[in-house]
């Protein structure tokens, strides 16, 4: 039996661009270039490494997002994933983390999985909650925030580096895993990979395919509401001095003036 790996990837606005809110206070995804969330590249990379170790594995990349999110899927396919699933529906606009996890869970059940791999957090919303929500919804073990991961004999093992301790974890498949940016650099797509990706299948699904109602998702279905978004005033320009031999002392003077010393 082949090992079915599904990697959840998100298409996000470029963090180095100027990110804004749209009029309805959702993240403005129109005026900024989007890309595959860099933190999800680590998830794709670990999937590829696990698949290399397994006798027979198939990697599906899954995204919930607008039309342009296909770019994220293409990138993952060019890295080496086998096929892609895109959940796309106008009614998804404004969906929050709870809604996203609901759609992802339905899509995972639809696709079939032994191992779900996510990034540690999306680089836009950055809540870092979707993997835990997926484990809860799917009723499978949560093996998250791993900086090292391996799969063998129907089990997933890994190391979770927490604040108080480093833990070695183990769970039986099926399971939901998330990996951190400490898990190992993601590979660059090769030219061959980029060409091959163009021919790989991308399945599109909408809410009806997943048996979901419009009211369960989107801005209307959201469980939270942003009432206000204000741009933080730019920090008032501070004093910058050039060190002419007394820079450390001058800085100490500033700190003393602010009562830090």
């Amino acid at each position, binding site marked *: 039996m082949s090992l079915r790996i599904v990697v959840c990837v998100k298409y996000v606005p470029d963090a180095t661009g100027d990110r804004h809110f749209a009029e309805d206070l959702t993240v403005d995804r129109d005026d900024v270039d989007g890309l595959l969330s860099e933190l999800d590249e680590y998830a794709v990379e670990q999937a590829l490494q696990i698949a290399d170790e397994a006798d027979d594995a198939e990697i599906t990349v899954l995204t919930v997002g607008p039309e342009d999110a296909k770019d994220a899927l293409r990138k993952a396919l060019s890295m080496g994933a086998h096929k892609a699933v895109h959940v796309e529906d106008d009614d998804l606009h404004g969906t929050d983390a709870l809604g996203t996890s609901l759609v992802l869970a339905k899509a995972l059940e639809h696709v079939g999985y032994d191992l779900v791999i996510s990034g540690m957090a999306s680089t836009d919303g950055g809540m*870092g*909650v979707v*993997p835990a929500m997926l484990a809860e*919804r799917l009723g499978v073990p949560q093996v998250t925030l791993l900086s090292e991961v391996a799969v063998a004999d129907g089990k997933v093992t890994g190391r979770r580096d927490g604040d108080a301790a480093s833990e070695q974890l183990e769970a039986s498949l099926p399971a939901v895993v998330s990996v951190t940016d400490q898990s190992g650099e993601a590979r660059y797509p090769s030219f061959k990979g980029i060409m091959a990706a163009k021919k790989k299948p991308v399945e599109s699904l909408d809410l009806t395919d997943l048996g979901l109602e419009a009211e369960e998702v989107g801005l209307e279905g959201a*469980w939270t*509401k942003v009432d206000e978004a204000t741009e933080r005033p730019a920090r008032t320009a501070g004093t910058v*001095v*050039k060190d002419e031999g007394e820079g450390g002392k001058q800085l100490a003077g500033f700190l003393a003036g602010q009562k830090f010393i």
Partner: protein
Amino acid sequence: MAEVLVYVDHADGAVRKPTLELLTLARRIGEPVAVHLGAGADAAAQTLGEYGAVKVLTADASEFSDYLIAPKVDALEAAYKAVSPVAVLVPSSAEGKEIAARLAVRIGSGIITDAVDLEAGAEGPVATQSVFAASYSTKSRVTKGTPVITVKPNSAAPEAAAAAGTVEQLAVSFGEKSTGTKVVSRTPRESTGRPELTEAAIVVSGGRGVNGAENFSLIEGLADSLGAAVGASRAAVDAGWYPHTNQVGQTGKSVSPQLYIAAGISGAIQHRAGMQTSKTIVAINKDAEAPIFDLVDYGVVGDLFEVVPQLTEEVKSRKG
């Protein structure tokens, strides 16, 4: 009066400061009821009571340490059912966010993460968040179910307010699915004796400019003279000069101290995401064009190997 559940972060009963901040914020919304899991309930209850907990619900079971996350969700859910609170507050640690996320799914409630402030509102608690690397500030609320809100460290000054802090046992039964992820072994982190990075009033961070693990003693020296925690940029961490637990930024810790000192750090957006809400920001960098200078209250353009030792000496002599 309406009750607010507060999930307690502690080490064997020693309550961590962010929990005291949560109790302080909880009192703006209702009466805090603390949920304490694991050992040390009596010691914890003393502190929790001092900071306003009317009740401390406690449970101790090996499941909490033998399995990841889910057993704690079972316990928090049991507390939720016992109390019917108007909100559930959880510290915004990696673990806290995962516990909160699963609880939200289970009880069918909306969730807000990484709040930096909280106030009572006509339609329930209003949370302030800092988003897009702190370039925006938002106010949000939960519109379905009981608000589950995780709050970042240093979001409020803990205020003492004596309350009963009565300890009550919480009955918890663990679901079969809650023991799926075994913690096979655990290696506790060694204490450095310095303040916790996320809780510290002052943070001194070093970046690529520090140029070597051995040179981090300069950063540590300055930190120790100020009683500060030590942070590092990802470049310094990736180079193996300082542990990942000390990384500040998008994929490290998010800090919000009174004073943040960056030495040899350029100020990339991912680094700024983790420190931009610091009250006062100071930078030492030899490149006058480094983006970090856009953020500073005070900056020194210079070689950190000259400026940092001089600053450390001056701090020490001023402190006497």
